[in-house]
């Protein structure tokens, strides 16, 4: 299963790059190529830097979450009632379950589901496969830099990538709706890398459970 997901991630990345080879307009071909090259270099550098920052912010966020996490000690035997056949709502709320993780984070202008989210996506796919009446909304979000409309499209692409990952794992299309809030509903206010990283995010929202 792990390998399959890596495959999906790669396919999504490749799909994004697949059209990159398209020739620019024939006019001023030379200049254009040089400009494009430097633009792509700049973009690549920026992406690498922002990916780095994203990973840092993600690590910090996890540390913060771990610190803020309420201490929940399951009583011996209680894990039986929270097992795979348990009530989906309680599974989703169990902080020890991978299902309590609902968010996928992204680098700047990126939309592929990074490898680190595989186990989380797998867990949600399993839950949805086993509970055909469950419905999930994937809500894509962006940081607030740049065009609102481009960000709306990018947020949709992020949400759609998560939806695709779920359907490839056997979840029925009708159980998933993907929407985008673009940059319009930032979870964290502020113009800094921490806020931007937090806001480049897709959330899995279970209809009727998460509201």
């Amino acid at each position, binding site marked *: 299963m792990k390998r399959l997901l890596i495959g999906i991630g790669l396919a999504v990345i490749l799909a994004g790059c697949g059209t*990159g080879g398209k020739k*620019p307009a024939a006019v001023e071909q030379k200049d254009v190529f040089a*400009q*494009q090259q430097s633009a792509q270099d700049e973009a690549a550098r920026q992406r690498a830097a922002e990916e780095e920052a994203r990973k840092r912010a993600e690590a910090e966020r996890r540390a913060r979450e771990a610190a803020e996490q309420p201490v929940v000690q399951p009583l011996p035997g209680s894990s039986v009632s929270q097992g795979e056949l348990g009530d989906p709502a309680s599974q989703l709320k169990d902080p020890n379950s991978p299902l309590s993780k609902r968010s996928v984070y992204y680098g700047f202008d990126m939309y592929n589901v990074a490898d680190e989210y595989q186990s989380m996506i797998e867990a949600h796919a399993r839950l949805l496969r086993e509970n055909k009446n469950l419905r999930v909304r994937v809500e894509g979000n962006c940081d*607030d830099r740049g*065009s609102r409309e*481009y960000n709306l*499209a990018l947020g949709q692409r992020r949400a759609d990538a998560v939806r695709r990952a779920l359907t490839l794992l056997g979840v029925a299309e009708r159980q998933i709706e993907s929407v*985008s809030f673009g940059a319009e509903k930032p979870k964290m206010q502020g113009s800094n890398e921490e806020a931007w990283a937090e806001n480049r995010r897709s959330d899995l929202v279970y209809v009727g459970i998460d509201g």
Partner: protein
Amino acid sequence: MTNARRLPSEPSLDFPDEPSRSRRRLLGSLAASYPIGMAALALPNWAAAQLTIEIIGGGADQIPITIVPFGAEEHLPQPLTAVISADLARSGRFRLQPPGSLRPLPTEPAEVDYKAWSAQGAQTMVIGRTIERNDGKVEVRFRLLDTAKASQLLGFSYTVAKNQTRAIAHKIADLIYEKLTGEPGVFSTRIAYVARNPNRFELHVADADGFNSQFILAHREPIISPAWSPDGSRIAYVSFEQRKAIIFVHDLVAGQRRIVANYDGSNSAPAWSPDGQTLGVVLSKDGISQIYTLRADGSNLARITNSDSIDTEPSFSPDGKHVLFTSDRGGSPQIYRMRTNGSGVERITFEGSYNVTPRYAPDGRAFAFIQRAQGRYSLATMDFSSRQTQILTDGQLDGSPTFAPNGRMLLYASIVRGRGVLAAVSSDGRIRQKITASAQDVREPAWGPLGAGH
């Protein structure tokens, strides 16, 4: 109703009436403070500011003009002289000269001592007066005079309700602007923008100078991408009120709206075709955001772009033959142009790795867009013939450019100390205006068309 007629140079001559135009006032609390970068102007400073416009910088080759205070305007709820002066000053194309010490101040041509005014340096002057009538209406008479030639360049009389003289002042400023620059004035136009208050988004419509602001929609969920229909009667926009992006068309006069696109996924980026019949929209229903067209009632949906990349932000050329749009098909978001049927796609921007939000200039010869360079998002224009980019702003996060219908100014969204503001810049980059609001945050400006009235 506004009644207007030309004032002849010789009072005995009769000129045909200017077509009268019905005016629908927007209700709501008005009033704004009006700091203009000119000490000579005594401008009203009313309470409860909604939008405040401040000029930064000035244009070259300004036309000197003397606006003599209108006679008997003190008793009107909305005096005219200050509004006309503020309009002309804000355009950056006029240098307002104080009326000086000559007394009495003339209000009719017969009272003008042309030689004395000429000697005082006035080349072009505006005079006028208001006359209260028995029916409660007020007659506004104004003339634009050439002092060197001792002749009248313009003369009109308007009869309006007492609370509509502000609109007449804008009309007078438009006439003066057009007579002296050869281009239409935009002082009678309106703008739309989104105000964000805590837990509430409001779509506002206001006069071009920020007065008479009134919201037409308020909701706790975001509103983006307002776009005026070419006749100014409707605004298309995207509302998230159903927890996803849906496109509405809102009839301003009827105060009614309808959903024109609510498909699976996102429905956004509405753009009107120049004939007002068709909307370009962006839908993600077929897998990824692509450009479609539909009729303004939502019917006749047709897909225009066919890529596996994001295609968004359509903008129709004024002749209706082309559409500019943003696409990341080349690996980064760039601006492309195609024919309205989707054929002949051509990449237009190559400089930098992020060029978005194209907007055709009203003459179709250039377009505005947002370019990222060194981490800044700036407003730029590009001329189609030279393909030269001109950066107009140096903001950190400028966006959502919208041309004035005469192409002279651009209104855009900016961020100042973490707060959304509107700003304007002349299309040559020389004149800037900062517009602030009492709302927590304003964004998403859209400049309405010429001649739409109210």
